[in-house]
């Protein structure tokens, strides 16, 4: 009898162990990473969201009841948000916005870069690392429904957030999302059906590294998580890994 009880106890224990290991539980210290094409971002007790002509600030200290604190009016055409080193970077149809977070409840505009006309109007994510911002702009009809006449990767030096300086321009074929590691910048190039790779170890002198480019169909956005890379495409996503020398290796695809 005792042994039967033991077995029952044991099996209950195994069952519950199995159950808890399959439970979905977030580690609150484990910060998530967003793709570059998004209009939502959080920082501490605050969440920032974009309307086409507004940056909105919410207090989420009580997550069950967010409170809209402020709305900062901008020109029409805000598309993507990226927070880095207590600044907010916005990709917009008209160019790049940089905002300060000295008062996180009410971000203040530091600069608004007007792009030259040939780069006007596209769905343009921006990512920032160190003193440099990397932004893609493109030509064809995209998810934002607009077009510009040229496609490119634009590199800005942003150490003075009130005066960002365009330092380099690389022509690209319909670029979308982008992400980086310490050494490399990866750009989803939908037009040329590949991940385009740039060496950003010296950001003042960004270099193309065509030998590292990786072919992929319709890449749309990308998340880099240490040596793991996830690329969303039009209708699936692909998991890749990056080895020590920066070469990209295929892991698996999840599709329809």
């Amino acid at each position, binding site marked *: 009898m005792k042994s039967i009880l033991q077995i029952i106890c044991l099996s209950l224990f195994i069952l519950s162990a199995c159950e808890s290991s399959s*439970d*979905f*539980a*977030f*580690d*609150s210290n*484990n*910060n*998530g*990473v*967003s*793709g570059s*094409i*998004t*209009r*939502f*971002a*959080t920082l501490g007790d605050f*969440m920032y*969201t974009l*309307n*086409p*002509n507004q940056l*909105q600030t*919410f207090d*989420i200290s009580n*997550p*069950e*009841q*967010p409170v*809209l604190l402020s709305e900062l009016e901008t020109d029409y055409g805000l598309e993507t948000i990226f927070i880095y080193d207590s600044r907010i970077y916005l990709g917009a149809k008209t160019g790049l916005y940089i905002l300060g977070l000295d008062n996180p409840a009410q971000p203040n505009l530091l600069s608004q870069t007007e792009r030259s006309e040939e780069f006007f109007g596209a769905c343009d994510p921006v990512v920032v690392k160190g003193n440099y911002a990397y932004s893609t702009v493109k030509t064809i*009809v*995209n*998810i*934002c*429904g*607009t*077009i510009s006449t040229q496609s490119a990767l634009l590199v800005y030096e942003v150490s003075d957030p009130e005066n960002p300086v365009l330092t380099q321009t690389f022509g690209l074929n319909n670029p979308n999302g982008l992400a980086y590691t310490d050494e490399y910048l990866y750009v989803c190039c939908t037009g040329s059906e590949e991940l385009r790779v740039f060496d950003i170890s010296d950001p003042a002198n960004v270099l193309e590294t065509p030998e590292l480019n990786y072919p992929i169909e319709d890449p*749309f*956005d990308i*998340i880099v*998580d240490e040596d793991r890379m*996830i690329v*969303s*495409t*039009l*209708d*699936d*996503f692909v*998991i890749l890994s990056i080895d020590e020398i920066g070469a990209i290796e295929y*892991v*698996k695809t*999840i*599709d*329809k």
Partner: protein
Amino acid sequence: MRSILLTISIFTFVLSLNACKTEHIGYSGLGKVPIYLPLAALDDIGSQAPQAVEQSGPIYLIGDFFFMIENRKGIHVYDISDDEQENSLVFIKIPAVTDFTIDGNFLYADSWRDLVTIDISDIYNVVLVSRIEDVFDPFLYPQLYNGPFECVDESQGAVVGWENQELENVYCRTIN
């Protein structure tokens, strides 16, 4: 008799309206029309069995959990820790959603004009915890599309998609 007269007069009135409209010349031909969802159905948020991806959208990774928007329908959730197995966990239905983020156990997303907060601590039984109304300006035109479409009539609800149809006398068009 009176009702017939009334019908005729309404008919004439409608005809005259039409006549007025044709002076502006709307577009007739193939185009897009909005698919509406009544606003009352926006609260139908919850966990469902995994679904196939139709068109991917914004993405988010937290630990080994990968989230991907299905435009205007919901969010796919995958466990990507295993390189060999396909691990589609669940689909979080959020009508009219286009973008989101996650903080702690809470997922924040747009739901037409509203911000919704969803407790995802149990991913298989997510719970809508709050809705803040009328903070977002949704797209009132079909995206990834260049051409004429039937203008959105918000009194019919939230736009959860667009379908191709023969249009008659429409005045809206995406401008590129």
